[in-house]
């Protein structure tokens, strides 16, 4: 983004209509979420898990909206632009299979146990299953530290959308950014809107808002796809002008001509990377915010639609985004077709790998001239981002309140009102930390890389939840060994990579961390004392 923003502002006035459309969208969203607050029952259970009242459609929309973030819309387009056609198979089709498997094999079982025994958080579940209060104190910082990068990709993703969109709109106010709204203001608005509706109605408001936002981003993704393909002369013409090197997965190096000279870019994906990337979608099995969404379900039957429709929803969002990314390789080349705007020439040809997250918004800006449409599609991208942020903020407040503050407190020490206030206070703290970090890191990190590291940590921990549900012999010591092994191996690879994309001879680190955690769980459990009969009966009906 710094590359784009550092260019001179465009000549002539830039319409602020897209920004007005965005403002209207945000007002509508706030109105809907505040209305949902009328159903708030004032209890902490209602604030945290909507009193288990969410039906099938809203569960599908909120779960899908939560798993699809800047990663799906902004990241997928940029990744397809960067690597080529393999992006879809690497992340989307595997997610369709594995996410649904996690909902079916983990989600329904967790919901049943949590409902039967009254758990509100993931940590309560693990503490009880592994008969260990201390495990919660080990898991809490790990979960928070893994969610924070996930939050960052959302907030930074919004900067990468709003920056290019508003460039040239306010040259007198924001000269340093070429007239674009600075990230500091975008962050305040996005976080402020999300905070407002979470505070209004907790989990229910998040579910309502997510349903609305998921419908918006799916519809706007399809609209963007249609309009861009139409602008490029139809589906056939659009793909024909794309750089053909991006149509296959065979790894190769491509010389890219940038504004400051040529450089080499790796494209394609190796077989082993593609295979081991399949571990990443396992992350949904351990996302604490998804765990919380599962608990909002009215009944186990509410999961049916989510399990079946999730792979289809993924296809609806990802296929258009990947195609737009492929088309962009032709549009923004050194020699674009005569039919494309002259302004497109070379704009992205020389974009460094760390900035490809801006591909979608810049493609829109250069090809779609109708400001209302640009505003609507941008609203769709923000919808995808915010529908994840809300659940993550809420979940961090929930686990802090329940697993740290209330865990050792005597019953009735805090009133329902005080419990909700504590949750809100922690959420504000997390928002402030996320906001500060996003401003520090926005120019250094690729959105997609941060997401993969966050997902890798959660995915590697999935062996913990799977063993807790399906292996009676899984012990407290095994759980500690699993968590600590995953944390240590993840940290090792993260430090070694510098936070960027990294493989070990083509193997994704997540696969190594996952197996290390699973082996630690099995070996240590076999050599330590089995769980009590009472626990077995409680968790294995």
């Amino acid at each position, binding site marked *: 983004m710094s590359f784009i923003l550092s260019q001179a502002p465009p000549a002539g006035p830039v319409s602020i209509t897209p920004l007005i459309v965005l403002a209207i969208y945000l007002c509508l969203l706030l109105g809907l979420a505040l209305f949902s607050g009328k159903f708030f029952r004032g209890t902490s259970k209602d604030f945290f898990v909507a009193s288990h009242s969410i039906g099938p459609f809203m569960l599908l929309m909120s779960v899908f909206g939560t798993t699809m973030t800047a990663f799906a819309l902004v990241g997928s387009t940029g990744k397809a632009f960067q690597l080529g056609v393999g992006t879809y198979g690497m992340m989307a*089709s595997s997610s369709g299979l594995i996410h649904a498997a996690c909902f079916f094999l983990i989600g329904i079982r967790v919901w049943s146990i949590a409902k039967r025994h009254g758990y509100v958080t993931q940590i309560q579940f693990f503490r009880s299953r592994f008969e260990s209060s201390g495990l919660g104190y080990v898991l809490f910082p790990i979960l928070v530290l893994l969610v924070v990068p996930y939050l960052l990709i959302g907030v930074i993703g919004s900067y990468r959308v709003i920056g290019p969109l508003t460039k040239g709109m306010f040259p007198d106010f924001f000269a340093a950014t070429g007239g674009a709204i600075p990230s500091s203001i975008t962050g305040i608005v996005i976080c402020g809107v999300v905070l407002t509706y979470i505070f209004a109605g907790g989990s229910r408001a998040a579910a309502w808002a997510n349903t609305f936002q998921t419908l918006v981003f799916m519809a706007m993704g399809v609209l963007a796809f249609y309009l861009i393909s139409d602008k490029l002369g139809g589906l056939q013409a659009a*793909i024909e002008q794309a750089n053909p090197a991006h149509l*296959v997965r065979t790894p190769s190096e491509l010389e890219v001509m940038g504004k400051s000279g040529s450089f080499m870019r790796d494209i394609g994906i190796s077989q082993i990377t593609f295979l081991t990337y399949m571990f990443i979608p396992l992350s949904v099995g351990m996302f604490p915010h998804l765990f919380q969404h599962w608990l909002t379900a009215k009944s*186990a039957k509410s999961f049916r639609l989510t399990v*079946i429709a999730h792979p289809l929803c993924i296809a609806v969002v990802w296929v258009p985004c990947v195609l737009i990314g492929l088309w962009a390789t032709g549009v923004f080349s050194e020699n674009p077709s005569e039919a494309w705007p002259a302004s497109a020439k070379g704009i992205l040809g020389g974009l460094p790998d760390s900035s490809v997250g801006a591909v979608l918004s810049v493609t829109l800006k250069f090809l779609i001239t109708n400001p209302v449409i640009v505003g609507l599609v941008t609203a769709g991208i923000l919808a995808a981002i915010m529908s994840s942020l809300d659940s993550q903020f809420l979940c961090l407040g929930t686990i802090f309140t329940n697993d740290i503050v209330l865990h050792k407190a005597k019953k009735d020490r805090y009133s329902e009102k005080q419990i909700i206030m504590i949750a809100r206070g922690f959420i504000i703290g997390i928002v402030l930390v996320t906001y500060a970090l996003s401003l520090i890191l926005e120019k250094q990190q690729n959105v997609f890389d941060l997401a993969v590291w966050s997902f890798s940590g959660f995915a590697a921990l999935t062996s913990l939840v799977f063993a807790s549900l399906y292996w009676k012999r899984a012990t407290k010591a095994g759980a500690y060994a699993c968590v600590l092994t995953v944390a240590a191996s993840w940290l090792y690879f993260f430090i070694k990579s510098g936070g960027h994309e990294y493989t070990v001879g083509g193997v994704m680190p997540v696969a190594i961390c996952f197996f290390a955690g699973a082996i630690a769980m099995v070996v240590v459990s076999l050599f330590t004392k089995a769980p009590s009969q009472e626990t077995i009966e409680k968790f294995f*009906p």
Partner: protein
Amino acid sequence: MKTAVFVLIVVVFGVLHQDFWNWDNPGLVFGSIPVGLAYHASYSVVAAILWAIAVKFAWPTRLEKWADGEEVD
């Protein structure tokens, strides 16, 4: 038995996901969608069908009843 069959099917799906035969195929389906993308988009549809079958034939009815407070055998 049902669980074993579904585990086997999921493993087969895992293998089908690694479509090495499409790796360097630059062809287009319907002249507009790269083969590698069309294959995996179809894979998503088939995955949805797989899970619909799982919901129909392997639904954890007993667990559901237990969660609702009913006594189960």
